[in-house]
């Protein structure tokens, strides 16, 4: 899902550290805590996501979801469709 160009961009942003753990939000198992790395969706959608608490560097928890993803964002529940969840690149955080 993550293109080579995209991965290169990620490495530059984060100083070339591990990329293996990075994945689209849509692939994360329910219950996992993740940090948002990049919003690779349409700029207009990114502008809607950030005020809702889904911004680069934000910690969110995947609660569940079929045909999409349900997130716990600072106590609020946010539902995203599966296409959008595919374009949000996150990194799982181990507690």
């Amino acid at each position: 899902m993550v293109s080579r160009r995209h991965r290169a961009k990620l490495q530059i942003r984060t100083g070339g550290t591990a990329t293996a753990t990075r994945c689209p939000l849509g692939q994360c198992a329910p219950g996992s805590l993740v940090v948002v790395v990049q919003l690779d969706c349409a700029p207009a959608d990114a502008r809607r996501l950030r005020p809702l608490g889904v911004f680069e560097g934000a910690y969110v928890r995947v609660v569940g979801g079929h045909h999409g993803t349900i997130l716990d964002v600072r106590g609020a529940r946010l539902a995203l469709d599966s296409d959008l969840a595919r374009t949000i690149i996150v990194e799982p955080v181990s507690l």
Partner: protein
Amino acid sequence: MTDTLALVQDESRDTGEQAPPSLRVALVGNPNSGKSTLFNALTGLRQRVANFPGVTVERVEGSYRRDGTTVEVIDLPGMYSLSAESPDETIALDVVLGRADGVPAADVLVVVVDGERMERNLFLTTQVLELRRPTVIALTRMDRLDAAGVDVDVVELIHALGTVVVPVVATRGEGIDRLRHAIDVAAELPRASLHLVSDEAAGADAEPDVHDAGRRYRWIASVVSRVVRRRPPVARTPGDRVDAIVMHRAAGPVIFLAVMALMFEAMFSLGRPLADAVQALITLTGRGIAASMPPGELRGLLVDGVVNGVGSVVVFVPQIAMLFLFIGILEDTGYMARAAFVMDHWMRPLGLRGKSFIPLVSGFACAVPAVMGARTVQEPKERLATILVLPLMSCSARLPIFTLLVGAFVPPLSVAGASLQGLTLLAMYLLGTVAALATAALLRRTLLRAATRALIMELPTWSLPSARVLAASVWRRVRVFLREAGTIIFACAVVVWALATHPRPDPAPGTTVTQEQALSTSALGRIGHVIEPAVRPLGFDWKIAVSIVASFTAREVFVSTMGTLYGVERGADNETNSLAERLRAERNPSTGAPVYTTRVALALMAFYVFALMCTSTLAITMREIGGGWRGMRWVTLQFTWMLALAWVGAFLVYRGGAFFGTGGA
């Protein structure tokens, strides 16, 4: 029908009589932050309250008196930030910035912060505070925080934000007086310049900085960590468990269909006895008037025109109230937002998203507020497609027609545990829904092609709806329906009665005129005869044609016209039977065969499923599309398309019915 419009008109009348307001207050906040409940508590004015984010779309105002001055309160559409992405957010932003047309700038902004979702709500709060306008923060749902064992240090929050914070429990009216006092004080205080988070200009027109959200949320997190003492976070709340079931890949859609089926079944089986009681009351009224007056024009007008005409619509109030109640419960519990998310997956191939689903379901109640509700759909072409197909969703105005015909012509049999009548009603609703979705798919592939926007939807906390709020919202809608019955339908009933009784036929000497002949030679009868050839292929006679013509103003008029027509025909001296009985007894004068067979009734229902017969909907659609030639073109296309569907649909049902042999009965 013109629900929200009527509310606005009500208020303009109220405020017109009062002195000019000395203070204007705007309520700002996230969708579903308890803003509308707080608005009710502040002003005492009843207004629709729902859990679905973004339902508060229309401009809603109210007022209260305090120390001899009037305080005007405007309840703004919910928004998540000061960057407007949809029409309703744009309206809210314009009012906040004091640049909205026709809305004076607010003296005080009241930011409504949902205590349960404080961090997210404080995002908008920081942006509003940076506008440096007099601002008061209302911290709502304090009772739920208490119940959850969450402690909020309000004094510390006041220090951090640099403005007044008033904790309130809007549902119980707690803290409202303190809030009113804080509003008075805020209006008088000079405002210090304030920049909470970033040093960049907080101009709303500037392109939002990508890093702004992160900075803001980090600042908010530091404030919240000082202010809130909460119990250890629960990984999976009971609400999440419920979500896992109702939003399940397979179970979700099944649950949704079951909820809808239950709703329509209950509407028919529980609403029927209530409707019978109302019918009995109307019959008594008609008899009372008939007995106390001498026969003549006036008695004919009152009994046949007014009581029968308006009465045959009023009789459906119980069922309409139940429909509004069910939709209210679905919204207020928080299920509607989940259903929208579940349905999103299935609606995507049609070119619509889950957000269009809410206005479409609201269309079951009434297309007028539903068309307004479509403002929450962000993508313009998607929104237009939603608005154009909305009137195909069977609104409550079709219910009188459906219940009349189903009650009269569908046998009360039981099929697999469900009543055949309830199933027929459900089939009519499904027919309209399928037509709406198919039309939308067609539009999105032809005239209204565009990429769809992503679905980002907040799921409100599951909650038990308040009986008081529900009752108020049902009553407000029923009142609008009754007012319509009292004005438009009353006027139509009188006009139809007059056209049906005049001109009177000239009997040849020595003969008497039958009621049938009298009606046939009347102005209305002549119109019906002219139209008849066009509806003959659908199995309709000239009397049905007359009722269809009369109902072009509003669908409810169909039933009242039938009531008037058949009341006229039996004559005022006859005992007032129910309209359903009269329809069943109706015979073709030349052949003696019943006029209304089951398949005629079904064809007639199919006709009304599709036909756009509602001037209010046409008017509001025109306004929402933007008026002018563009609006006119779309509305004309919409009306023609639906009329064509209606004719073809009724034709197929009638001919198909003959094929399957249901014509005999």
